[in-house]
């Protein structure tokens, strides 16, 4: 299979210019030299994958770019996409001691990107242990960051790992779900390709949907890693939400990233106030929508999006409508959508409509972004894998489920976090699997 089948779309690239553009070589060295090179650095501790941040930054300042990239990849095989997609403001850069030094934090994300871009430009491949040098066979179900990290780590230790992905392309939300101005689909696919070259086998377009299919895998593989992500986007459960013009945020993001949706115009209403809602609203603006509203049933202070995402959306020209809830979607005679909304007040934890505050928003698209359902259909039927609120219960140190042959990581096990959390989950699971396998060996 190929891991690189989407061509670069120049128009898309132009519209979605990098939110954090690459550093020039000299800017990178200047920034690297600003780093204090902390001992037991808080940035490293804050990173879920514990990248040796001062270590890779120091290497940039001396021009040891290969060493820098390998230092990153050693801890985080998706170091390239994490450099771009991580909410560094609440992770490494948020922990930087520079905040207490009356200074801006070191631009760790951009430096990491610099190191990774430089490495990728050399075309060098990563060395792994000889394939199959450990007779351990692992199937990673789902082709997102958790499985990629798990499979790559297993491969590095000489195990044989395959990735089974129901979509055409690997990468999961890295490929289909991250705003293009942060991470391009082509970036995600290049990373998957690097992992394929390490020796990981990819089976794409292959859904595992039945207990029989799983049992077959069980007979073929020693361990199974579940990196299946969350379920479908939640529905608003209001009349009219199935008509044309209404599409959920992940579907919308995947559409423009894969070239199926190239342009928008008119008015777009995004419902929800999480990071995905922000991504969708900003993308709608960049695709040409003149007016983009973000509608949230609670207030500004309750929104779950990161502060910097909120700031970014405002900068993109997104308008925010607080404490307003949609209750129906209709169409008018010209075929435009009419979104019926009402002001709501918080009474305790419940929301009460304010009488007489109904308002109709005439628009062209409605994009619900109110979260993914915590649902892993695949494993719901499996015995001995405990779910809690739809999330797979695992030992956080190892990712092991109640069924000792099954491990899980990423959104399906952590409830929905960031790429870097998925990578950390996958890496931990792989190490735990190798530990069990080595013990069995000995």
């Amino acid at each position, binding site marked *: 299979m190929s891991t690189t089948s989407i061509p670069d779309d120049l128009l898309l690239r132009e519209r979605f210019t990098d939110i954090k553009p690459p550093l020039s070589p000299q800017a990178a060295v200047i920034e690297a030299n600003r780093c204090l090179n902390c001992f*037991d*650095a808080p940035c490293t501790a804050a990173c879920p994958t*514990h990248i040796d941040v001062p270590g890779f930054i120091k290497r940039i300042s001396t021009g040891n770019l290969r060493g820098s990239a390998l230092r990153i990849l050693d801890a985080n095989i998706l170091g390239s996409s994490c450099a771009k997609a991580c909410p560094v403001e609440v992770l490494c850069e948020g922990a930087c*001691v520079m905040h*207490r030094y009356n200074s801006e934090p070191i631009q760790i994300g951009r430096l990491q990107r610099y190191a990774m871009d430089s490495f990728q430009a050399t075309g060098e491949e990563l060395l792994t242990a000889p394939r199959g040098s450990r007779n351990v066979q692992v199937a990673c179900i789902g082709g997102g960051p958790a499985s990629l990290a798990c499979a790559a780590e297993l491969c590095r230790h000489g195990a044989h790992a395959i990735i089974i992905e129901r979509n055409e392309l690997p990468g999961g939300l890295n490929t289909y779900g991250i705003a293009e101005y942060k991470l391009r689909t082509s970036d995600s696919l290049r990373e998957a390709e690097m992992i394929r070259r390490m020796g990981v086998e990819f089976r794409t377009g292959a859904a595992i949907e039945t207990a029989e299919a799983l049992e077959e895998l069980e007979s073929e593989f020693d361990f199974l890693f579940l990196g299946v992500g969350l379920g479908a986007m939640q529905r608003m459960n209001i009349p009219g939400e199935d008509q044309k013009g209404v599409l959920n945020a992940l579907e919308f993001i995947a559409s423009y990233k894969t070239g199926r949706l190239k342009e928008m115009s008119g008015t777009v209403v995004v419902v929800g106030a999480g990071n995905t809602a922000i991504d969708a609203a900003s993308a709608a603006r960049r695709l040409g929508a003149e007016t983009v509203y973000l509608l949230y049933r609670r207030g500004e202070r309750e929104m779950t999006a*990161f502060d910097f995402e909120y700031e970014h959306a405002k900068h993109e020209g997104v308008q925010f409508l607080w404490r307003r809830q949609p209750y129906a979607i209709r169409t008018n005679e010209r075929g435009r959508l009419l979104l019926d909304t009402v002001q709501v007040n918080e009474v305790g934890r419940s929301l009460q409509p304010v009488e007489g505050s109904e308002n109709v928003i005439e628009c062209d698209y409605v994009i619900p972004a109110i979260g993914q359902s915590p649902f892993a259909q695949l494993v719901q039927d499996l015995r001995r894998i405990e779910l809690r609120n739809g999330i797979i219960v695992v030992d956080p140190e190892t990712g092991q489920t109640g069924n000792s042959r099954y491990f899980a990581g990423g959104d399906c096990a952590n409830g929905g976090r960031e790429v*870097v*959390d998925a990578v950390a989950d996958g890496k931990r699971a792989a190490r735990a699997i190798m530990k069990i396998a080595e013990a069995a060996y000995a």
Partner: protein
Amino acid sequence: MPDIRVHKFAGKIDAPNPFWLASGPTTNTGEQIMRAFDAGWGGVVWKTIGDPIKNASPRYSSVDLNGTRMMGLNNIELISDRSIEDNLRELGEVKKYYPYHPIIASLMVESKREAWHEIVQRTEDAGADGLELNFSCPHGMNERGMGSAVGQVPEYTEKITAWVKEKARTPVLVKLSPNVTDIRAIAAAARRGGADGLSAINTVNSIIGIDLDTLVPRPNVDGASTHGGYAGPAIKPIALNLVQQIMSDPASALPLSGMGGISSWRDAVEFILLGCSTVQVCTAAMHYGYRVVEDMAEGLENWMRTRGFATLDDFRGLSLDRVTSWNGLNLNYKVVAHIDEQKCIGCGLCQIACWDGAHQCIHSDRVTGPINGRIELHDGPPTVEFRSRTSFATTPVTRQERAAAATSHGPFPTPLAKIPRVDETECTGCNLCALVCPVDDCITTLRVTESGRPENQDQQHSVAS
């Protein structure tokens, strides 16, 4: 208003301030020197005059430090490449317009009595206020028997100084090379030869670095390089040391124009505190232009005002008697490091420096019990790092998680667990931690009081025997 004028340096030379441009590229022509005077320089030493030479190109290269340019500058430029006539004609012209700014002519000619007599006569006739004998250029000219080839041999130094003094009517300064075993031997020789003053130091012999692509040291002159003269901020400590040696030795001490890495008024004050009457600057002016003198003069005045010094003489040499032999140090004086928790940013640099480069007494684990009289066991750096790198960290995605992450742990800006602490019973007071700490005044050394009466090595030795 403090008075920063220089009076009767080396017997005769007055100047509006002690900041002089050293002999070099910044004093190559009359046009430059007039601009320099306009910018505020108190005097100049004209680029060494002698039989004109042909220079190599390129002729400079430098050491950058973590992105800061020209921490050290190396040159292989020789003396003036312009004719003696041109130089002296311009010198005379500048003197007409700037009668109160001293122009010292740096001279270098063949080691012959007649040659020196002739150049001295011509230079003084042209109007020079003083002469600086370049016995110290460490590259090129020395291969022709001049420059440091003279200044590295006391007998030559004394003899040529004496030849010059036979003729000279203006003060004669001898410029000394640092590239000698004991600079006092040369200084004393110059003094015996009759020198009225000294200039120190010239540049330090150097190979500044090697290009890792071509494997040729810099500067690369068509595939080869050569030894150069090292200057700039990097050499200031070397210069201060040599200045102190000269000025503390009765047989060597003469009115001294100090130089070597001076790039601010602070540097200048240090040279004056070790006995210099004037200071010379080259690299800083090459780097940023003549304008650097503005802050030098103002800064010096403001410092003098703060300290209550009315003239340069009020503080000249005040630090000289604060330098002793190691054996003269009080070994009962003891300090220990103290970390100000309110200022600490949690970078851990003091901790790793203490463990790897000092005496293993700064720790991140806090002991609650008594800390005296017991050997404490602490986690070393590998354990500390291992703990962090195997800890479980996740992205705070909910507002509650973010609020929890933002909450400070403890009463200080930095979480208490990240503020190192000094084990005072083990601390040797070496001071390394205070040097590596990026925060001003965060780590200080406190004097331990119960250390007994002052006692140096010799006294301790005599008690023991």
